């Protein structure tokens, strides 16, 4: 009982802090989650974070909320999911309430803007760091060139076209199945 409470508490305050300091899109908060839950706490591994992102992208709603629900569920079941979603939603809720009160100050203040700009640079660094270590994790589990090729294709398509992430999930799934089946039969015939 006490152990479970401790787990929930750690889940809650980790997501709370993450959500309070992370400015930027959904992928940014996911890379920060990776830092905390994979590198520091070691509760899940890197490929699991990627799976969490894939499932998050397959459902409606903000990526940050979906990913935290999944992370909580994976670590502490439905109770864990409840705790992490609260941790994720409370900070933006309160910050936005304060912003509402000081609306004019925030929209014009140069010092606030400059500091937030600096934080964005830090955010860019941590998302790059996350991408690099995710690539390394993928290379460890899948030694074929297939994963690198899919990564490059997906990266190139997202630069050129503006299409919904769900199509990337579907496309990746189809390519993965086709290639794995091909590899299985090809290798069988060869060997």
């Amino acid at each position, binding site marked *: 009982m006490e152990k479970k409470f401790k787990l929930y508490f750690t889940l809650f305050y980790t997501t709370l*802090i993450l959500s*309070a*300091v992370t*400015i930027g*899109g959904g992928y940014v908060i996911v*890379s920060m989650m990776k830092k905390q839950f994979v590198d520091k706490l070691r509760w899940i591994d890197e490929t699991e974070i*990627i799976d969490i*992102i894939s*499932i998050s992208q397959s459902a*409606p*709603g*903000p*990526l*940050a*909320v*979906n990913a935290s*629900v*999944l992370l909580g569920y994976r670590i502490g079941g439905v109770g864990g*999911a409840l705790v992490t*979603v609260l941790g994720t939603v409370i*900070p*933006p*809720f309160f*910050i*936005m309430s304060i*912003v*509402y009160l000081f609306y004019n100050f*925030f929209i014009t203040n140069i010092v606030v*803007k*400059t*500091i937030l700009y*600096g934080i*964005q*640079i*830090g955010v*860019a*660094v941590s998302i*790059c*760091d996350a991408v690099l270590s995710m690539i390394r994790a*993928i290379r460890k589990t*899948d030694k074929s060139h*297939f*994963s690198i090729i*899919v*990564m490059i*294709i*997906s990266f*190139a398509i997202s*630069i050129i076209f503006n299409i*919904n*992430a769900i199509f*990337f*999930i579907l*496309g*990746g*799934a*189809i390519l*993965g199945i086709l*290639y*794995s089946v091909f590899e299985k039969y090809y290798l069988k015939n060869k060997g």
Partner: protein
Amino acid sequence: MIWTLFFTYLKIGLCSFGGGYAILPLINQYVVTDLQLLSHEEFIDIIALSQMTPGPLAINAATFTGIRAAGFWGGVVSTFGCILPTCIIVLVLAYLFYKYNEIIYIRFALRGIRPAVIGLIGYSALSIIYSIFINNQTSLHILKKFSFNVGGVNLNILSIIIFVCAFIGIRKYKLNSMIVLVICGSVTGISLFFIDKTILV
């Protein structure tokens, strides 16, 4: 009013596939045009504020418009309505995923999905880097002072230096990323005072 807010955001939460900016047209239609809780200028301000503050745009917009329309509890029900459908859907998907992920075809599919997702995140990283290295908006002193025109684009030297230092700090010295965020914010904040001391007054 409370119920209208709740159902409006429930609808928005349910339809917002793709997250982030996918939600903008929905908020524009239901909250700005139909309910008229926000003017168009305020809507744009909220997008800007949303980029400046932590948290998903959907939650920021829900909180802001909810409080404006019906006070504190308006904010609470809007935010709750916005995340309720996604939470349920995600939990169902998670249950199915962890139950059936031993099936061989799901493992095959994941082999392709994982690198595809990394490609997507890579793009998101690239676009963030692009927006901080190259600024055409000159509303910030710090950007005016440290920007140099290289081949038609304004390259920001200060942000490139901070980026490189922070990158080395995270990759080589394994610094905690939260600390890196705080340091980066302080560096730009402090350099602002050096550029323009009148800001103190």
